[in-house]
């Protein structure tokens, strides 16, 4: 198959989008690197405190008129944006591949899931309706309205550079708030392209702002009194120790979505033919760089025959995964985002081996098709004899690794799931409804998969998560996002 054309040409300078204008940052400039070739494909300014303050001010001023714009009119901007996203679907997807490294199927999937959030937010005239009760006392009625709050900050990670801000932004603006998005400085191009379409859709200046940068921008959001709330997706240490407490201290509401070490539990009665590809997607999709990825495979039962046969099927399939340029449509796995991330993953593999794990499949020296440098590439790695207390289980690896644990029964597997410090998304593969129900009932985590390797909630369901993987109360996406971006205002009235 031919390699698809790269959409990013030359080395564009990625600007901030503030108050409806494209503004070059006065801060330092950082290279945006394509992990496939390790070449610089863009440059991005690292914004200053003054620049984030300016964006928040613009958003605050835009809020005054925007909240008065009827919800049905606000939706029309989103409908136009949705149309433009469809028209630019392929380019947006290829940008993600070029700046992140993921395969084109994965990028198109990311684009689609991002658009779905815009579509769901278009239902806001219904979604943000309140409630009323007549005659709560004689001649007195009470009603509840959902009202916007002001300016929200959206801080997003590198692994889904296009989609993740769309878990929040469409709901925030549909409900009448204004937003300042801080894309990851490692992959800022997707959000810049999205902002171009926001601009084309005609959103009023200041409603949707994008400020590129690092910690200064994050701190600027956290410390600014006009930011009413923050949605964050990133690592657990940052979310737990910085974002969540700081939001609490400054009275901001927050959705803090963090790391994971998800368990994929395989029962001996699973459908092996269907389970193996689901596990490939789970463990090695997006090169393992997602909070819904499987990190640990728990094979239940003491039947060595099943274990060996199953692991043989898993290993044989993983071994054949085609690694290379994500714009080559035959490629099944791209590189990890950068050398530092690769080194970190390699460190975890070493740690696992030191702790007693053994290698069933060694992905440290991958075969990259197309003659690209292997600088950022890793192949699928499968480690056996893994125990629940090892760092490769208790910490998030965020790479294409599978740690295999064996348990005598389902109870032990559930115990391992529940004892893990992360509680994001665990799954069971079985043909037994009884075991599936037991797993769904007893495992404490935000999302449960039954014969599904990536438990990615659709846009009309909350992107859930529990302790260790999530801090806050409400989640992004769907109705919970609508609740998060609105305050409940109650009015009780009597006409005397």
């Amino acid at each position: 198959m031919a390699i698809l054309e790269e959409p990013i040409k030359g080395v564009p300078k990625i600007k901030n989008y503030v108050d409806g204008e494209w503004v070059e940052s006065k801060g330092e400039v950082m290279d945006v690197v394509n992990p496939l070739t390790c070449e610089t494909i863009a440059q991005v300014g690292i914004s200053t405190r003054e620049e984030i303050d300016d964006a928040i001010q613009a958003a605050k001023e835009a809020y005054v008129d925007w909240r008065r714009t009827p919800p049905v009119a606000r939706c029309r901007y989103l409908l136009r944006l949705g149309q433009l996203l469809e028209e630019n679907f392929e380019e947006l997807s290829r940008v993600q591949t070029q700046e992140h490294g993921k395969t084109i199927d994965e990028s198109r999937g990311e684009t689609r899931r991002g658009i779905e959030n815009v579509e769901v937010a278009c239902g806001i005239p219904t979604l943000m309706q309140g409630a009323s009760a007549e005659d709560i006392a004689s001649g007195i009625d009470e009603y509840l309205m959902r009202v916007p709050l002001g300016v929200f900050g959206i801080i997003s990670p590198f692994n889904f550079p296009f989609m993740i801000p769309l878990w929040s932004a469409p709901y925030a603006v549909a409900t009448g708030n204004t937003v300042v998005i801080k894309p990851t400085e490692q992959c800022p191009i997707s959000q810049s392209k999205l902002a171009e379409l926001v601009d084309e859709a005609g959103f009023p200046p200041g409603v949707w702002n994008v400020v590129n940068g690092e910690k200064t921008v994050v701190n600027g959001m956290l410390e600014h009194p006009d930011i009413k709330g923050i949605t964050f997706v990133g690592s657990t240490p940052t979310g737990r120790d910085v974002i969540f407490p700081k939001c609490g201290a400054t009275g901001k509401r927050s959705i803090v979505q963090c790391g994971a070490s998800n368990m994929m539990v395989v029962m001996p009665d699973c459908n092996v033919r269907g389970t193996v590809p689901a596990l490939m997607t789970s463990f090695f999709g997006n090169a393992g760089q997602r909070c819904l990825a499987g990190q640990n495979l728990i094979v239940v039962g003491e039947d060595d025959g099943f274990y060996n046969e199953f692991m043989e099927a898993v290993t044989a399939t993983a071994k054949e995964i085609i690694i290379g340029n994500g714009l080559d449509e035959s490629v099944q796995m791209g590189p990890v985002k950068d050398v530092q991330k690769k080194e970190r993953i390699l460190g975890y593999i070493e740690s696992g081996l030191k702790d007693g794990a053994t290698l069933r499949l060694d992905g440290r020296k991958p075969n990259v098709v197309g003659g690209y440098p292997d600088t950022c590439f890793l192949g699928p790695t499968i480690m056996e004899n893994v125990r629940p207390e090892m760092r490769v289980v208790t910490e998030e690896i965020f790479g294409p690794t599978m740690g295999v644990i064996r348990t005598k029964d389902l109870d032990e597997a559930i115990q391992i799931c529940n004892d893990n410090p992360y509680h994001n998304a665990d799954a069971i593969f079985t043909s037994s409804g009884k075991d599936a129900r037991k797993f769904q009932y007893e495992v404490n985590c935000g999302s449960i998969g039954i014969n599904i390797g990536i438990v990615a909630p659709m846009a009309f369901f909350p992107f859930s998560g529990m302790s260790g993987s999530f801090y806050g109360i409400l989640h992004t996406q769907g109705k919970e996002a609508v609740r998060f971006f609105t305050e409940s205002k109650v009015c009780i009235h009597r006409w005397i």
Partner: protein
Amino acid sequence: MKLQTTAETISFVKELEEKSAKFYEDVFRKYSKDEDVLLTFAGENKKYFTQIQRAYYSVISDAIEGCYAFKLNSDDYEFETALAEDATYSDALAKAIEIEEKILDFYHVAAYQSMSLMADIPRNFKIVAKKRKNRIPTLESLG
């Protein structure tokens, strides 16, 4: 060549449909017969690809096994479109039937293999297969 990802399978659909459309256009150009059938088929091919591609873009999800959905071999569905200098119209129609059978076979297998993807993808493979199936008796009736 192996086809494993959804992206490359959809591109292969494009290749099949364009190649067979060109074949029908060439046959009409060479023999100037049955314009209503041959050029209609060529036009339908473009629509079939659009239909499949639209289904793909509408439901592709990184959460489903898009990169591992297929175990196809494109060689199984390759077909020759060149006609010999002295080929008769009947020879051309016989070749057209062969091509249709290959493509039909591809759609049936692709529909079966993509059952784990969102339902729209196998459904549209089946719909196109069903529509194309009617071509064979039509081609047999010509000449």
